[in-house]
């Protein structure tokens, strides 16, 4: 597992890559095509054996890098992840659904009732056996992640290269605010407006804030997120704690940290 064995493998052959889609809108797979300017160059570095978005064929038996989009929401997709892990030297999760369970995680409260509400008695076999939504990393060890909803195509390219060639770039876990300071954009809290940058993992460069929108947390909670301090900051700046916690549910519903630290 990991980049090391992969690098030695690539001395013998071009890395074989598969792209797998689980519960998601498939938008992150589509985002890859938005790197169209570079697609031929990227394809020149890999042997793309399977891309679920563009084929009805079955997955090949052997591959080196597996890219997984989407959340794990069924027993079948859980098995898929395990099978992929057993074969791939490197597993990459892409997009909010695969890295945080994302929007599918919002189905968590009262999940059983929701399924009956949508499907009644006629749950199709093709739906599979539902389980609580979870990120890929909750099922198998993941070697790398490309975060956000949707992913940035060039973030994906950079992470793929990291898998192929290794990288000396450290992955930061700090939260977003320092990026806003670099960009010299105005902090939403100064005008009493909720923004999830206080606790959300940096890496996107605060692009929503650059476009005048508060962070909605699609990169997921930083492992170093300080929820208590962020809620205290909400108090200081006249932002409702309840609104803050509610907003966090969109991309962090199944994050155990959120469940543990629930604000009374």
């Amino acid at each position, binding site marked *: 597992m990991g980049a090391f064995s992969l690098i030695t493998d690539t001395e013998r052959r071009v890395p074989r890559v598969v792209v797998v889609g689980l519960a998601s809108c498939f938008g992150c797979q589509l985002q890859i095509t938005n790197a169209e300017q570079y697609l031929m160059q990227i394809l020149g570095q890999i042997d793309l054996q399977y891309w679920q978005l563009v084929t009805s064929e079955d997955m090949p038996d052997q591959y080196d890098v597996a890219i997984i989009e989407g959340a794990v929401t069924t027993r079948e997709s859980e098995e898929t992840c395990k099978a992929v892990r057993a074969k791939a030297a490197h597993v990459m999760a892409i997009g909010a659904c695969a890295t945080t369970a994302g929007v599918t995680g919002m189905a968590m409260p009262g999940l059983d009732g929701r399924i009956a509400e949508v499907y009644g008695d006629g749950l199709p076999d093709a739906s599979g056996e539902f389980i609580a939504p979870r990120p890929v990393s909750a099922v198998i060890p993941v070697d790398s992640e490309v975060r956000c909803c949707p992913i940035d195509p060039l973030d994906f390219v950079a992470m793929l290269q990291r898998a192929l060639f290794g990288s000396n*770039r450290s992955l930061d876990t*700090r939260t977003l605010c320092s990026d806003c*300071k670099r960009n010299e954009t*105005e902090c939403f809290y100064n005008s009493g407006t909720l923004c999830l940058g*206080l606790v959300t993992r940096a890496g996107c460069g605060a692009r929503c804030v650059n476009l005048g929108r508060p962070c909605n947390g699609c990169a997921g909670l930083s492992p170093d997120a300080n929820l208590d301090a962020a809620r205290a*900051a909400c108090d200081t700046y006249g932002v409702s704690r309840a609104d803050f916690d509610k907003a966090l549910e969109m991309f962090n519903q199944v994050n155990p940290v959120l469940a543990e630290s629930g604000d009374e």
Partner: protein
Amino acid sequence: MLYRVMDKRELPALVRAFMESYEVVAPVKRGSGYIFDVIGSPEEIELDYTQTASSPKKYLMPPTETLMKFDANMNLVEDFIEQVTPRVIFGVHTCDINALNRLDVALIGGKYVDPYYQARRDATIVVGISCVPNENCFCHLWGADEAQFGYDLFLHDIGDKYLVSMSNVEATNILEAACELSEATDEDRIAFRQATRVRQSAFNKDIPDVQDVAMLMDVFHSDPFWEELGKKCLSCSACASVCPTCFCFDIRDVLTPDGKTGERQRTWDACTNPGFAMVTGGHNFRPTGRERVRHRMYHKLNGFFVNHDRMLCVGCGRCVTACKTGINPIEVLRFFKRKGADHAK
């Protein structure tokens, strides 16, 4: 210091003269605040600005810069110094001039000179402007309320005129060619003295003036205060991003999408980033907010001082605004003040 008096109405002429041969950056309005940005005309400048969101540091040590380029096809490494733009930073407060002097000490004052910083510093003219402190300013506590050096021109506001300190020939030549200067009169001297009094008395007296701060940092190194302060840290490093003297960086290689060429980049890093003190093998020397916040304050208020005889904090007050949970050097001073009160009991 050589000084002359200049009528304020001449200011646009001075700026335009600089614009002929330099890129001029100056404080401009952005949203409800101010930033340093490239100007297109002197009218954009807001010289009455209180404080910019971030400091002029970004022009000498950009958030991300290229150190070298490499090409695997050609097996080539190309040393790289970005084409340096000759630049005037116009309207810099004393705190930020003193901050540049501290960056000079750290980056070009030692045995190993940072050529990237040096190239930009050499190509930069700094024009200072006097200011009146806002409620978060505490530059006077660290002796950063006066700029003894580190600028090329300094404009002291004395009503409808500036008393201009001149410390660089090139900038002085431009000034003299663009503006009518006069010798200071007794009236000008009195006006300058009055301005310094107004400024001195305008500092927020609720910010404690504490003796021996560097030593106190050592003495109270293990106090529970650091746990309290560290517990509030959001691990965002907003403080370091706005700080005019934070100079820590990370270096990384970035490939182009074809995987064959790329560049080595330097990017701002900060000791408040959770992974900053992580080493190979996974051990993190400063795993929690307590260690990280304390370390940052130590470098600002102790470590740099004992090595270079001046605080690394210049009291600009930016972190006071930037930190959403109230972690800043003023809180450290208040802690020391409380300790003094404890002792008196």
